[in-house]
């Protein structure tokens, strides 16, 4: 199995210093990602879900060292990229790409579609002639379902769904192995969202891609992912194959999260599980389990000690004493 691993993350932390002080004790941190370890196999889609502030985007950005992690190791195809210098890191960009949430702000409004998609080729494939690059851009547009005629137009002339297609075309221009999709369909209309989900699925097959799919939308994540990781306050609460997570969630947080989704059936308006309270202030985390302040089954032990992620079923891991 080990050969299949494309990504292996060990004890990754990303802490933001909010208040600097010479006295380390007095520094105030937000532990946006706190001791996170997991692996991703080649060709897999790992969904990352959680509520706002759970650290899912921070995790995605730290994995590519777009934001420098505070500590931990990231192995990409067996190599620890934490030891990479800036030149190696630049080369790594070819293999790992990040697709941002908002297709409105992730493209330069003054650049034409051609310039936007050709940029990664200009950077990494200096050997290509401009004719070759032009052909490649046309080909990429075709792959994402746009006509090559759009090349000379500007981002504002496109709808949200079309922009997301352009961003995806840029993302796959260098034939990456791993794509981090951060809320890639969240800003889109329902009827367009399905088109982009299908496109991502198609590309995955066509180019043998591995996805980290970050989203707050559990339905979309369930649909697209092989496995799902549930984050809460920067820590992994549960990680399991997608079907298992929904049919047999072990962590109380996962259960409330799934229970709070609407069933989408007006005849069967089951009481949604109402999770009381709100996410605690990340500057002032509970001492034990981060979920203990809202957990319906928390005990004194949970409030004192932090549970570690442990196996609770086949390929299923949860960090709860009672899972």
């Amino acid at each position, binding site marked *: 199995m080990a050969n299949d691993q494309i990504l292996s993350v060990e004890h990754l932390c990303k802490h933001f210093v909010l208040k600097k002080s010479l006295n380390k004790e007095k520094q105030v941190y937000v532990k946006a990602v706190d001791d996170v370890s997991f692996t991703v196999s080649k060709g897999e889609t790992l969904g990352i879900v959680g509520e706002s502030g759970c650290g899912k985007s921070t995790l995605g950005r730290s994995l590519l060292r777009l934001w420098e992690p505070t500590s931990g190791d990231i192995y990409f195809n067996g190599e620890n990229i934490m030891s990479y210098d800036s030149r190696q890191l630049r080369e790594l960009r070819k293999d790992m790409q990040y697709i941002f949430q908002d297709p409105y702000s992730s493209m330069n409004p003054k650049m034409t579609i051609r310039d936007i998609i050709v940029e990664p080729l200009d950077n990494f494939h200096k050997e290509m002639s401009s004719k070759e690059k032009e052909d490649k851009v046309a080909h990429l547009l075709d792959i994402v379902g746009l006509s090559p005629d759009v090349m000379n137009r500007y981002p504002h002339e496109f709808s949200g769904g079309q922009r997301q297609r352009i961003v995806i075309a840029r993302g796959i221009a260098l034939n990456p192995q791993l794509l981090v999709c951060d809320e890639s369909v969240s800003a889109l209309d329902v009827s367009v969202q399905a088109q982009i989900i299908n496109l991502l699925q198609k590309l995955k097959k066509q180019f043998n891609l591995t996805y980290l799919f970050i989203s707050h939308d559990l339905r979309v994540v369930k649909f697209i992912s092989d496995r799902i990781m549930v984050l809460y306050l920067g820590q992994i609460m549960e990680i399991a194959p997608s079907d298992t997570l929904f049919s047999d969630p072990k962590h109380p947080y996962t259960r409330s999260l799934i229970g709070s*989704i609407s069933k989408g059936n007006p005849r069967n308006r089951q009481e949604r599980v109402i999770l009381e309270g709100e996410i605690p202030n990340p500057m002032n985390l509970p001492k034990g389990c981060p979920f203990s302040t809202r957990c319906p089954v928390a005990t004194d032990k949970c409030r004192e000690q932090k549970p570690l992620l442990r196996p609770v079923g086949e390929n299923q891991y949860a960090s709860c004493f009672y899972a």
Partner: protein
Amino acid sequence: MSKTILRVEDLSVRFRTEEGVFNAVDNISFTLEEQKTLAIVGESGSGKSVTSLAIMQLLAENGHISSGEIYVDDENILNMSSSQVQHNILGKKISMIFQEPMTALNPILKIGDQITESIIEHQGTGKKEAYEIALDTLKQVGIPSPEQRIKQFPHELSGGMRQRVMIAMALVTRPKIMIADEPTTALDVTIEAQILNLIEQLKSTFKTSILFVTHDLNVVADIADDVIVMYCGQIIERGPVVDIFENPQHPYTKGLLATMPTLEDHKGELPTIQGGVPSITQRPGGCYFHPRCPHRMKKCETQSPGVYTVGQQQVKCFLFEGNKEERNDGK
């Protein structure tokens, strides 16, 4: 028969832009019954928010109601003077809550001051009494330690708490109608469940009717009694929520329901509706949906269909031309 509390007739809203004048809302009619929840569902550009803003008379400067009537309790509010509307209708009979409470709340006023302002304005109470009412309402919307919260500024509250404050502000005057425009869209799923629950509770406590504007069909399934589906400023289908979900008639409604990923097991490809919603400046001729419609016919390209009755539903589509025609909006 329950009593009709809000009746909108042939409402059209026009916007003036650099590229010309466009109908954001195009000749729509609907009614809201007492103590019912009517959901208006649609994608961006469908005119669902403009409809609610038109009722609240909060349209942007370049927009105006070009035709139609809006009856609240059988009075046409479009015939009233603006001061009459301000004093007798808005805030008193109809309140509104918005998607992003941070932009709807005044950032430099304490929560308490914002709530008491409307109580003093509409109920003519003194400051002290208004404060008590405000405190009481904050308790009712489930804000913990309201005595402290009432002294805080909006930025000191979380998104869910701010939405609760918005709801409290909307409720202090005991309105008959509450218009909720995507009130849970910006919230996390666990908080969304809390707020929807709260809205349901308050609806039965205060006997309020709710006009719920949303893009989220799952939310509609959970809270609506009746549903209006809008596309490009027109109502293309309406009916009781169960009929709309189990037996959608309009190709657009069918498509929308099919494209939603469900929690049931299935991988592979999602059904899609081809293309995207046309922008207001580029609406096609005939039926606005025809370029995306799998059932389009020749006449769909040139004529706008009338509204036909199918069971409990009304559908604006030529596929049902043989059925009883409710009205003809054809132009």
